[in-house]
């Protein structure tokens, strides 16, 4: 979506600019001599031209350039604003819209420019109708010197204050070829007269190599106009002679060290920049290490009384754990980087919908794995669009129900255990249950008149193709529905929940694991297969006694502290074909408020799980979130908690329906 695509952003922005230009022009018709309006329109045209040219909208840039030039005359007071001029630029503005959409018609554009010319002529002036000038690098090949150059240069006194670092210029010269640098200290004033921020040193540089003059000019491009620079080609014999000269004063450059240099050097030690992919590679290695470490632990435990091996193994276990934790921290970034992207979005939505919307954020400092952040962006854009477009009412509607005319969308993030919880809350009209029901019935998702719990009814919005917008606006209702959002969140091993109070607003809650690569898991055995349950989802483990087992046949519910919890017999689900162990265990897992028990044969213990995704052949398998390699080299599948809870819920529904 628009998060990372400047061209898409430009289109949105161009729309805003055209609106700004239009409003300005319309206001201008009533107040032809309002300087501020003239400035505003000019600025709109100017930005549209500049950004258009940046993003390859050349026809737009050229066309807008003519209008800007004409309008610049008004701005500079060279020509008065006339009704005709305003009218022409208004129609030019409509033409710009077409140019942005790629529907241009050359003849129309030319006709408008001709009218523009006429309007300017009538107003008393001749616009410059040259095309948008684009800077050409100074042409003309200067003589190159095969041997090199002797340069003498002095920078303007205020060069350093204005951000030019002479040492960097010298570094750039060194990049061109071998340099012998000598400081010219003759103009350093006596200490009493010395202005410390000014630059009093000049340099003489013998630059050896086949360097074109233009390359030297490039080095000095920003200071060229104000500096003294003398260049003379080095003669071949001079070059010879130079090699005998003792290495020229390397220290010369240190004569007037700019204060910034030392500070920069000190700073440079504090951190290093690392490309993201190297971090990913390192993460993989740490993952492999964790696997190897757990194999070692198993060997050590099986070794009986080899205390030396055991102590080494424990040491390595501790180190691997710490390494993993450190690695995790390296990958964490604050969600502020995510939330900040939405300011512009809400602003645009506010404009497009004509609603007054305020975006509030909290918990921006909460840190999440960077890949999670990246993958959350799109679903959140969709959820925020929904909140603004469907959730919030127009100012009139809000006023009618006694609400503040400005609607709010509140983003918040906080960490809860191994998860980060992100909520998107609006104070709009809430989800219209009747409409959801009508739509669900129309789509055949539920039977007409079927009794549904409120929460279950709200869940309907996550069905594919479901959209309650009565009218498809240009913002939402584009077919990417809540089902896509839900799938994306679940692919992050997260969960999405919706709550809504009619008239008060809706809250979408996303629960996302902090990291995707390594989790703490509970290793269990079902039949002869081993499986990993993410430990963060495990609430408790209990024994399923034989009598409880028999009593619950066919119902698959247990009573857990006065509440009924559905459970799934994994042995049956996975068709292991084995006899159950005498003492089966129930692992109770939960997402949000929902719980389900999983009946397993044996609970083996906790296991640091490096998640490997499953192959494309298995993308239909929904009960598993991935696989991992065990300490003994065997493979265990990782259970998908969200899916299992869903299955448990359906089971509960069936039971309720059956009475």
């Amino acid at each position, binding site marked *: 979506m628009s998060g*990372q695509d*400047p*061209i898409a*952003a*430009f289109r*949105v*922005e*161009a729309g805003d600019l055209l609106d700004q230009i239009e409003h300005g022009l319309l206001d201008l018709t009533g107040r032809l001599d309002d300087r501020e309006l003239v400035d*505003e329109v000019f*600025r709109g045209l*100017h*930005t549209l*031209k*500049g*950004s258009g*040219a*940046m*993003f390859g909208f050349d026809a737009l*840039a050229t066309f807008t350039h003519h209008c800007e030039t004409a309008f610049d005359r008004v701005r500079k007071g060279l020509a008065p604003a006339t009704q005709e001029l305003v009218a022409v630029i208004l129609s030019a503005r409509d033409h710009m819209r077409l140019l942005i959409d790629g529907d241009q018609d050359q003849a129309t554009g030319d006709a408008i420019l001709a009218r523009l010319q006429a309007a300017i002529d009538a107003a008393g002036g001749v616009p410059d109708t040259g095309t*948008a*000038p*684009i*800077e050409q690098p100074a042409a003309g090949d200067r003589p190159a010197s095969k041997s090199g150059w002797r340069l003498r240069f002095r920078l303007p006194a*205020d060069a*350093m*204050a*204005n*951000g*030019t*670092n002479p*040492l*960097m210029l010298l*570094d*750039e010269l060194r990049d061109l070829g071998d340099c012998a640098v000598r400081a010219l200290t003759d103009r350093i004033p006596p200490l009493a007269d010395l202005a410390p*921020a000014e630059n009093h040193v000049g340099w003489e540089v013998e630059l050896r190599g086949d360097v074109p003059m233009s390359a030297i000019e490039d080095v000095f*491009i*920003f200071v060229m*106009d*104000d500096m003294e620079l003398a260049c003379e080609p080095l003669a071949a014999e001079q070059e010879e002679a130079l090699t005998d000269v003792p290495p020229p004063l390397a220290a010369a450059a240190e004569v007037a060290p*700019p*204060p*910034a240099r030392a500070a920069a050097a000190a*700073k*440079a*030690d*504090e*951190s290093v*920049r690392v*490309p993201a992919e190297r971090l990913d590679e390192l993460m993989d290695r740490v993952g492999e290490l964790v696997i190897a470490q757990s194999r070692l632990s198993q060997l050590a435990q099986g070794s009986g009384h080899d205390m030396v091996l055991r102590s080494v193994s424990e040491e390595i276990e501790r180190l691997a754990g710490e390494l993993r934790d450190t690695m995790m921290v390296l990958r964490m970034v604050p969600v502020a980087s995510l939330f900040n992207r939405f300011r*512009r979005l809400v602003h645009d939505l506010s404009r497009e919908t004509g609603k007054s919307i305020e975006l509030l954020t909290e918990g921006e400092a909460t840190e999440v794995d960077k890949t999670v952040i990246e993958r959350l962006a799109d679903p959140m854009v969709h959820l925020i669009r929904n909140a603004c477009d469907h959730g919030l009412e127009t100012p009139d509607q809000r006023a009618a129900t006694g609400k503040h005319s400005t609607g709010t969308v509140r983003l918040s993030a906080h960490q809860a255990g191994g998860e980060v919880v992100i909520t998107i809350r609006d104070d709009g009209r809430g989800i219209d249950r009747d409409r959801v029901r009508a739509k669900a019935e129309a789509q055949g998702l539920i039977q007409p008149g079927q009794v549904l719990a409120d929460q279950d009814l709200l869940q309907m919005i996550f069905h594919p193709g479901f959209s309650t917008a009565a009218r498809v606006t240009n913002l939402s209702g584009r077919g990417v529905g809540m089902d896509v959002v839900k799938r994306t969140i679940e692919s992050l091993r997260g969960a999405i929940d919706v709550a809504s109070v009619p008239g008060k607003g809706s809250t979408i809650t996303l629960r996302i694991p902090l990291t995707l690569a390594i989790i703490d898991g509970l290793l269990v055995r079902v039949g002869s297969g081993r499986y990993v349950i993410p430990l963060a989802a495990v609430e408790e483990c209990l024994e399923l006694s034989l009598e409880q087992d028999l009593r619950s046949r066919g119902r698959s519910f247990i009573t857990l502290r006065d509440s009924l919890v559905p459970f799934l017999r994994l042995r049956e689900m996975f068709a292991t074909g084995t006899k159950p162990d005498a003492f089966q265990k129930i692992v109770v897992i939960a997402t949000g408020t929902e719980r389900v028990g999983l009946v397993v044969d044996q609970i083996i213990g906790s296991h640091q799980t490096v998640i490997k995704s499953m192959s494309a052949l298995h993308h239909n398998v929904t009960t598993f979130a991935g696989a991992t390699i065990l300490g003994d080299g065997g493979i265990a599948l990782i259970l998908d908690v969200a899916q299992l809870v869903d299955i448990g819920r359906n089971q509960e529904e069936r039971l309720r329906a059956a009475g």
Partner: protein
Amino acid sequence: MTASILTVDDSPSLRMAIRIALTGAGYAVTEAGDGVEGLQKAGDSQFDLVVTDLNMPNMDGLTMIREMRKLSAYCGTPIIFLTTESDDAMKAQAKAAGATGWLVKPFVPDQLIRVARKVLGR
């Protein structure tokens, strides 16, 4: 230490293009939408480089550069301005205001990165 860059422009798409180019080159980028915001953010934290548009609402680039140079923390910090045409008069004004260098729009990301490397030396 990642060099931090403040980009000041009233055009969000341009800011985004600048941010993407510079972030891709390994810099940390902060955005501001006009001279007032730019000056405020510059006061909040120390940036290693400022890239600013000249024509902006509320406070234009020239004024912002002059004000920044008054801050002791920004005496010596490179400030690059963006200019739509190679307008020599504007260039001279911006340089007199204290700008270090300029970049002519439209530019490609490489040109921007080259200028950043040039003035930052990294």
